[in-house]
């Protein structure tokens, strides 16, 4: 492992930082893929308030790579710490996004395929599906780490650019490979830079570097009980700051919209992007 770590450091050393223009969302995906050859490292911690249990901090380390202009692949390593309980590694997720269309359209589709191998203690909330509810977070880590969840997650990402706004809709279907029913969910996001034209000055605090938006996401039940009953729903405003140094910072407080949701979730994001990985 040590050699792999050193090799990784050497690769990042020869790569240069690239443009930071990351999606502002935490849950919703838009139709923009990573630039070819660019590698993004990100850390996305999340604080969750649990009314009937212990609060927690979960997080994922994300490695995203632009394999081509039509294919982006990502690896996530997830973990969490629950107050008065323990800190646990909860598994990994491997995600791939494919762009079938060669050109921009009014609505741009992206196909998303993810394999995840996590345990029941995973609290990253990368997507909310099926009957994921607040009471799931009350179960102790000592029990949930025993539950192995190997799942295939499919998303249809639809996204549009309209007069400076991004409007994205994600339809989510998750299949637990142990034979459980398909679960469904959705995510919807809108965002816009605070200024559409760039200022001529080089600056970190120019309005065009900030993006504000809103996310709405939640579960839609499963094949046995489709709909909003016994699901959790969240509304989360967000702000993203794209620094000229290829770093992006994001913040999003979110609120549960029904009694089956966590009352409050606070997400934070840090990412840095390196370009020309592997180029001579």
């Amino acid at each position: 492992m040590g050699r792999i770590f050193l090799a990784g450091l050497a690769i990042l050393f020869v790569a240069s930082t690239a443009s930071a223009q990351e999606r502002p969302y935490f849950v919703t995906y838009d139709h923009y893929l990573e630039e070819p050859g660019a590698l993004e490292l990100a850390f996305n911690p999340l604080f969750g308030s649990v009314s009937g249990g212990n609060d927690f901090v979960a997080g994922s380390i994300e490695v995203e790579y632009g394999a081509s202009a039509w294919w982006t692949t990502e690896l996530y390593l997830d973990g969490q710490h629950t107050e008065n309980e323990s800190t646990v590694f909860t598994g990994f997720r491997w995600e791939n996004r494919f762009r079938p269309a060669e050109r921009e359209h009014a609505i741009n589709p992206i196909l998303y395929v993810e394999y995840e191998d996590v345990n029941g203690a995973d609290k990253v909330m990368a997507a909310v599906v099926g009957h994921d509810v607040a009471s799931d977070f009350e179960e102790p880590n000592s029990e949930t780490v025993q539950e192995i969840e190997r799942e295939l997650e499919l998303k249809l990402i639809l996204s549009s650019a309209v007069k400076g706004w991004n409007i994205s809709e994600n339809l989510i279907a998750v299949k637990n490979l142990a034979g459980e029913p398909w679960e469904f969910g959705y995510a919807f996001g809108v965002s816009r830079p605070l200024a559409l034209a760039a200022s001529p000055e080089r600056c970190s605090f120019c309005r065009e570097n900030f993006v504000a938006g809103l996310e709405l996401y939640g579960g839609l039940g499963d094949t046995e009980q489709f709909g909003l009953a016994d699901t959790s729903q969240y509304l989360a405003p967000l702000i993203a700051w794209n620094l000229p140094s290829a770093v992006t910072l994001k913040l999003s407080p979110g609120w549960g919209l029904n009694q089956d949701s966590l009352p409050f979730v606070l997400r934070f994001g840090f990412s840095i992007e390196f370009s020309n990985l592997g180029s001579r």
Partner: protein
Amino acid sequence: MRFAVAAVAFTVFVLSSSSAMARKKPESQIYAQFAHVPDDARARANPLEADPDAALAGRKLYERHCAQCHGATGESGRKGPSLLVPEIQTASPGALFWVITNGNVRAGMPVWSKLPEPQRWQITTYVQSFGEAHTATAPPGPDRAPGR
């Protein structure tokens, strides 16, 4: 253990595909994208043409988003073709804006519609300023919009 296996597999994949990625596509294939620009897009005028700050802002955006592939002054980079060639410099602003917006996905150029429209026009203005010396000595190309 399973996460170590996943991490190693992902690293091997990234390293192998990145070396394949680094191979630049034939430039003729890349410039051919200009033949696909729709007529109405080709005829669009640059709304920031008279804005004295457009090229300055475009330069800032170019250095941030484009120079990694096309080189600091558009001379061609590790992955992207030269922007100093007549195919680019004699293209109409509308055609260049369309190619920036739509990219050339199969040839490795991503779409740039994630930048708001005014920023894409600012980049267009800056990229076309590369060739002012070139167009001053060469006859206008067939693709050049009237009035430009």
